[in-house]
């Protein structure tokens, strides 16, 4: 079976076979990605690699010995050499530590995005290049296409329910030129059907959930409580400034959160509008106070450079503020040290540390870039 859009050689005139390193998490998507890469490039030129990212306890994701076993056995079945790369120290430094520090300072970082930014599309790409590979393939549901002028574009995956372009929106030309998404043209049911057809042991494996380095029985609160002091805080009314009560740990509260915030005197639900760790204050307000018309971003990344107008009057775009959020119209303007995104209609507040992914106005499935909320 050959899926459209999957390249079979690096360039048309290059006769040397393309060597591909497939990042295999032990899940079904990367298993099928490996199978498709092997089919396209041959088993001699495709190698599987599983990243050992987390030395502590975990029950899901990319880190456990059971997942490494699954990845290795799938590679064996496909006739691929398989290696394990120990990137645990980098993962701790670039993903876990900033996650913990972020919460301690009242931000809500997205560890999957930081892992993609620093591990899969930096450390792993470097390692692949060092070992003589032309590209890294992953099991992400996203597509890489090339415009007529040669520019690489990052496009939403074919399965809208599984599209992962949001967590890849930090990729630039340098990374995209060396990246393949073999399952990006497929729907999840097609991926599972292909895995079943090939008899891969991961065909029915459940999708990974939540943060891969946090065990479900410990949870985010337990994980953070082991690493940073958590402080009780005061709940303060957004309009009146009145003291509304106490929260157990101000570090565990996220802007936009509704759970545990109760109802106002008007009987309507309360939302978190601000978290201030130093003063231990959580501000809550009615639904209308939980909306904002603009958001400021730092750590801005562009797929193919800043869009026209962003430095001057502003550029039209669509903004997606969470992994499964709906993209909304906005205008994007460069600011000192970052970007301001002005929404066409006010949006639910996005917590500091979260990522906003931007899409083209004329081709709304094409990623423009991303930034992290201040």
């Amino acid at each position, binding site marked *: 079976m050959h899926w459209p859009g999957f390249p079979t050689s690096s360039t048309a005139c290059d006769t040397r076979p393309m060597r591909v390193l497939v990042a295999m998490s032990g899940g079904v998507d990367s298993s099928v990605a490996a199978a498709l890469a092997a089919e396209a490039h041959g088993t001699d030129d495709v190698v599987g690699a*599983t990243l*050992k990212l987390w030395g502590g306890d975990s029950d899901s994701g990319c880190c456990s*010995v059971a997942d*490494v076993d699954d990845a*290795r056995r799938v590679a064996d079945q496909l006739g691929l050499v398989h*290696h*394990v*790369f*120990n990137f*645990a*120290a980098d993962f701790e430094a670039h993903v876990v530590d900033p996650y913990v520090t972020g919460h301690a300072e009242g931000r809500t970082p997205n560890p999957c995005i930081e892992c993609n930014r620093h591990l899969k599309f930096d450390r792993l790409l470097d*390692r692949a290049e*060092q*070992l*003589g590979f032309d590209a890294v393939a992953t099991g992400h549901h996203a597509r890489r296409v090339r415009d007529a002028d040669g520019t690489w574009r990052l496009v939403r995956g074919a399965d809208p329910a599984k599209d992962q372009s949001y967590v890849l929106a930090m990729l630039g030309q340098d990374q995209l030129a060396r990246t393949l998404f073999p399952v990006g043209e497929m729907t999840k049911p097609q991926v599972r059907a292909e895995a079943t057809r090939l008899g891969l042991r991961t065909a029915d494996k459940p999708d990974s959930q939540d943060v891969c380095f946090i065990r479900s029985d410990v949870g985010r609160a337990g994980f953070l409580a082991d690493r940073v002091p958590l402080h009780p805080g005061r709940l303060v009314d957004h309009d009146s400034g009145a003291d509304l009560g106490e929260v157990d740990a101000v570090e565990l509260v996220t802007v936009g959160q509704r759970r545990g915030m109760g109802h106002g005197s008007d009987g309507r639900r309360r939302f978190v509008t601000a978290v201030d760790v130093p003063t231990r204050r959580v501000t809550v307000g009615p639904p209308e106070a939980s909306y904002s018309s603009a958001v400021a971003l730092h750590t801005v990344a562009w797929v193919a450079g800043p869009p026209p107008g962003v430095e001057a009057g502003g550029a039209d775009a669509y903004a997606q503020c969470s992994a499964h959020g709906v993209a909304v119209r906005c205008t994007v303007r460069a600011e000192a040290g970052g970007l301001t995104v002005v929404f066409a209609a006010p949006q639910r507040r996005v917590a500091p540390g979260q990522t906003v992914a931007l899409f083209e106005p004329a081709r709304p499935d094409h990623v423009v870039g991303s930034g992290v909320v201040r």
Partner: protein
Amino acid sequence: MTTPGDTARVYLDHAATTPLRPEALEAMLPLLTSEFANPSGAHAESRRARIALDDARDAIAGLLGVGPGEVVLTSGGTEADDLAVHGGWEAVAEGWSHSARPPAVVCTAMEHHAVLLACRSLARRHGVELREVRSGADGRIDLDALAEACRPDVGLVSVMAVNNEIGTVQPIDEVAGIVAAGSPGAVLHTDAVQAVPWLDAATCTAPAALVSVSAHKFGGPKGSGALVVRSGTGLSARIGGGGQERGRRSGTPNVSGAVGTAAALVATVAGRDATVAWVGGLRDRLGDGLAAAVPGVVETGDRADRVAGILHLRVPGVEAEAAVIALDRAGVAASAGAACSSGAVEPSHVLVAMGLDPVGASSGLRFSLGVTTTDEDVERALARIPDVLDRLRH
């Protein structure tokens, strides 16, 4: 000579494991086929198996310089280490009168994980004080630090005879003197797993009451090893059951394993002087050739302090994990120190014990040679390794 397109593999990971010696295979085959019986039975079939087991034990004991009653056959080096640390310590603790606290434990920080984690498990589960003694930058135990750790409250000391990553020989005689002087109530264990292929084990382990060996490091089968328990040394069993091995290690004896171990040990000892000279020469040629061809490469430890088969290098700017994979692709099987259960390479605790930082401890490469290593292997290695390391340098 090597030729372009030469795809012959070069196996330089003998410290991880060795191929089975033909003598061992030949000796084992009858025990895996016709002579299959359980040696504990009361019939003719059992008696034949019993004789094979007893002969094997006699041979192993003789070559280790002890009596047959002093050899406890185990499933390998790790079980021997675990039995020595837990079983040896427990026996000491039962008669402990020095203090109300349980006897303390001393080991080197560069021990194999089989010893290190057994000691840490004692510390965790029994509240035992564990003193891990650092090494010098030369890869040998710091004897002053050992003397400081060996106080009268110590019940068990474990110091390996030869380090498995860098191959440095540890001064067990001097260690024994320090232990006897400072910790008269302590039993001394030595992990001699990497010593047997290269040194006269009977002599170099003589001062230790407990000695671990593993067959597959010297051409014997995997899953077979022994703990020497010198007469007068107490030992609590870890595995109870049928009372085999004089009640010190229950379980139906691995007769073929014992027979293969004995045959491999006989062959190893008979050929040892010649092997050490031959392999040592190849190791030196490989080390000298790589030193000349790879700028900045550092050989760990003095050759005079190391067993003949191990060449340990640090290559600044090269991650060992990437190097091992690139070398594999180039047809050379080497190792980067300890591998965890998932197969990932961990920074070497041995290099950390010698004072290296985590980056330095992740740059160690071990090439280990053995009886089957040839001139051509070294030629091929020298033709391939420098290019690979050069390409990996940032």
